[in-house]
């Protein structure tokens, strides 16, 4: 750890949102050549603090010093000018613009006065190369998968050549190979004297990459420590304020009858969709009380499978069949799926999950209005009670359930989606990266909830990019590769390496260390 003068120093930072004190009296320094982890529960104030440092939030109390000089940024561009760049938690990209245009947005390259497209694409390709991605920089961002978009956001931040790089949950949609690559790059940055602030809810990552860690709780600093000298359990206790023994709970539920059976499912689309991987021979079963994991590399087709089962995948001729409780079904729409007891938590909560400017209440009850009233009428009182119920059950942290969802921290937003889906009382629960951006404590709660639900006879199909999560939570893990199911492990025996090997297939032979 370097003892040189800090690149930036924050002192006494405080920020209030209405009734919520997001940050109070926080001090933080970032030194050159260090990776400084910022830890804390959902809603602890991590993002807010970093948005202050990166010039996104400008009305706050406290001091920012950059290289010893007090600074007050007028906006993100100002902070970037001072060498501070931030990867935002939410993937803030412009959908219709290309990768290169997004990367260079706001600081376009010019040659003899005109936009230098070629130059921007070449330099974008180079940064993408650096993090191990080969994407055509001319492709519109809206055609990319969530994980790919996250990589583009990372590339964008890297291309700024900042002296302080803030990464707010950069890996939440990435699988292990991309994470490894990102860490390689991060170590390079560290070598070059860049100060990195790293926010993540994946505890194993902290131990691997961080030099120092600062823990926030309820907007206050709990302390700064060396993560290599502390166990994960200690870190988690610091974050949550009470000990958590194990994050994962495996249910010991008696497995019941077969609930969902997918037989050789394949979907062929009418129009070619570049970079898509449609189900192309998937077979699996989920029994009552069972939590089945879906593993696979980025783009293996997990999301497409779940969307197809929910009836919202893009239309196209299907072969194979899906059986629900023994009866063949053809999911055509979300309504159909819901009516048959199939519920779905989509991967990208902001795009597909939530009405961001609507209240927690409205977002919680929208899928289950039928159970709140009858004849198309709803009672505001029962609506309110239902939402409060969900909020309490999932521990959603919000000042009031009438607050808009976008004032919630990322993890709490995710819980709102989960709460809504659970209110539909499903038999089969399809989850696509349900713990993306959720803190350890809350994850544990969600897992426990899943276990509980499984105990009541629910079947769960869970896609996740976090292998430890899959192995820790699921009874079985089905591995997808290029749209096919290629392996089915019992997690009691399987190791991460086995799952990974199956996911990568023949590629593993080419991999070197």
């Amino acid at each position, binding site marked *: 750890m370097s003892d040189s003068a800090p690149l930036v120093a924050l002192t006494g930072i405080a920020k209030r949102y209405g009734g919520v004190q997001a940050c109070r009296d926080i001090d933080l320094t970032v030194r050159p050549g260090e990776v400084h982890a910022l830890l804390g529960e959902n809603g602890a104030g991590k993002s807010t603090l970093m948005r202050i440092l990166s010039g996104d939030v400008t009305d706050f109390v406290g001091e920012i010093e950059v290289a010893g000089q007090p600074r007050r940024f007028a906006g993100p561009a100002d902070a970037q000018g001072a060498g501070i760049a931030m990867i935002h938690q939410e993937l803030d990209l412009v959908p219709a613009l290309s990768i290169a245009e997004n990367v260079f947005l706001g600081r376009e390259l010019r040659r003899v006065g005109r936009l230098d497209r070629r130059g921007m694409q070449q330099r974008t390709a180079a940064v993408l190369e650096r993090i191990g991605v080969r994407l055509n920089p001319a492709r519109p961002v809206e055609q990319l998968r969530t994980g790919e978009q996250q990589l583009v956001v990372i590339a964008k931040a890297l291309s700024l050549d900042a002296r302080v790089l803030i990464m707010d949950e950069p890996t939440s949609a990435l699988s292990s190979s991309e994470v490894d690559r990102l860490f390689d790059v991060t170590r390079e940055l560290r070598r070059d004297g860049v100060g990195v602030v790293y926010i993540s809810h994946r505890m194993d990552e902290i131990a691997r990459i961080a030099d120092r860690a600062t823990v926030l709780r309820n907007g206050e600093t709990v302390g700064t420590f060396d993560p290599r000298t502390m166990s994960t359990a200690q870190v988690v206790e610091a974050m949550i304020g009470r000990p958590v023994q194990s994050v994962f709970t495996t249910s010991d539920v008696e497995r019941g009858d077969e609930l969902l059976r997918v037989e050789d499912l394949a979907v062929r689309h009418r129009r070619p969709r570049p970079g898509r991987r449609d189900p192309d021979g998937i077979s699996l079963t989920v029994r009552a009380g069972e939590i089945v994991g879906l593993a696979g590399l980025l783009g293996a087709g997990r999301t497409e499978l779940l969307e197809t089962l929910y009836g919202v995948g893009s239309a196209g001729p299907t072969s194979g069949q899906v059986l629900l409780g023994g009866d063949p079904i053809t999911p055509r729409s979300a309504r159909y799926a819901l009516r048959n007891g199939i519920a779905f938590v989509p991967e990208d909560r902001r795009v597909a999950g939530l009405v961001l400017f609507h209240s927690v209440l409205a977002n919680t009850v929208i899928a289950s209005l039928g159970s709140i009233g009858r004849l*198309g009428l709803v009672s505001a009182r029962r609506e309110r009670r239902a939402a409060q119920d969900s909020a309490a059950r999932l521990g959603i942290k919000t000042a009031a359930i009438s607050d808009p969802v976008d004032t919630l921290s990322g993890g709490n937003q995710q819980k709102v989606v989960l709460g809504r889906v659970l209110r539909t009382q499903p038999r089969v629960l399809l989850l696509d990266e349900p713990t993306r951006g959720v803190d350890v404590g809350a994850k544990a709660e969600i897992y426990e909830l899943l276990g509980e639900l499984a105990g009541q006879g629910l079947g769960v199909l869970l896609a996740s990019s976090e292998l430890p999560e899959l192995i820790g939570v699921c009874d079985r893990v089905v591995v997808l590769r290029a749209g096919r199911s290629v392996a089915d492990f019992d997690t009691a025996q399987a190791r991460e390496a086995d799952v990974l090997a199956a996911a990568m297939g023949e590629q593993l032979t080419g991999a070197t260390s």
Partner: protein
Amino acid sequence: MTATLTPTPQREGARRRSPLAWLARFQSVLGLVVVFVGAIVFSPTPDGEIIFLSGENLTNIVRAVSEIGIIAVGMTLVILVGGIDLSVGSVLSLAAVGSAVLLVDNQLPLAAAMALVLLVGLVFGALQGAASTLLGIQAFIVTLAGLSIARGLARLWSGGQAVPIAYGSGPGEAPIAFSLLGERTFNGIVPIPALIFVAVAGGAIAFLRISAFSRHVYAIGGNEKAARLSGVPVTRVKITVFAVCGLLAALAGIVHAGQLNQGGPNDAIGYELDVIAAVVIGGTALSGGRGTVIGTVAGALLLGVLNNILGLNSVDENVQLVIKGLVIVAAAAVARFAPRT
């Protein structure tokens, strides 16, 4: 594993209900309040009486905005789902012509004629909604086409000339009951169109408060994809909303015919902008998912009060146009800078 599912304490108590927060709930009517107060201040006062505040003048205002207001209720729904309906003025005119032709020329009984006219509006709206959602064409285009089509149909149906409505029971005369729409009632103070407007707006407000349908409307406008994934029947709701807007435009057309004693194929040209203005000034976002019918009512009344007070004062007509624009911006700015929670 110890983690018990203890709920995080809800900090409900911490939220004080400040007077400011209370006021903010009425943000959408704040512009109206400001304009109303302004109107009192600038009202002519011959014999010391504030003319603007006279009962007769106030009911005049409500009557004057009632057609726009009735449609604006439907337009609010359309805009809430993220759509727009430019055809309302033409549909109004089509319905007015229809009322006149069916009552006078075709001698249909009142109920049948009204039902038929409302059905025309409903179907016209539903067709537009279907074209927009099923073919995936922007509502702006579809309803712009609808504007043209309905106007053409109104002119064809009427033969190009306004169809006058005479009352009586002879041939070529409409049932006298229809003339009630043009009358004042309740001691000559409250005009029937105003009552219809109030009923439509009140009904809509109540219905929106207690119906699942309205939750669907807001969700679709807020995030259509999320709504669909939540099992909201997006297409059906959208078509319904356009149908309701068409229906209300037709209802306004009936009122219009009753008010003016004729079905004019060239009436209500450009009303779509007035209607949308009422909705938007009332705080509904054109991007959908955000807004209230109460705001719309306030928006319609704001425009009515403004028109009225400018008319009462003998301001030069051209200067009026300038003042009107400035006041609208000012009222919107006031509402915008109202305190928020």
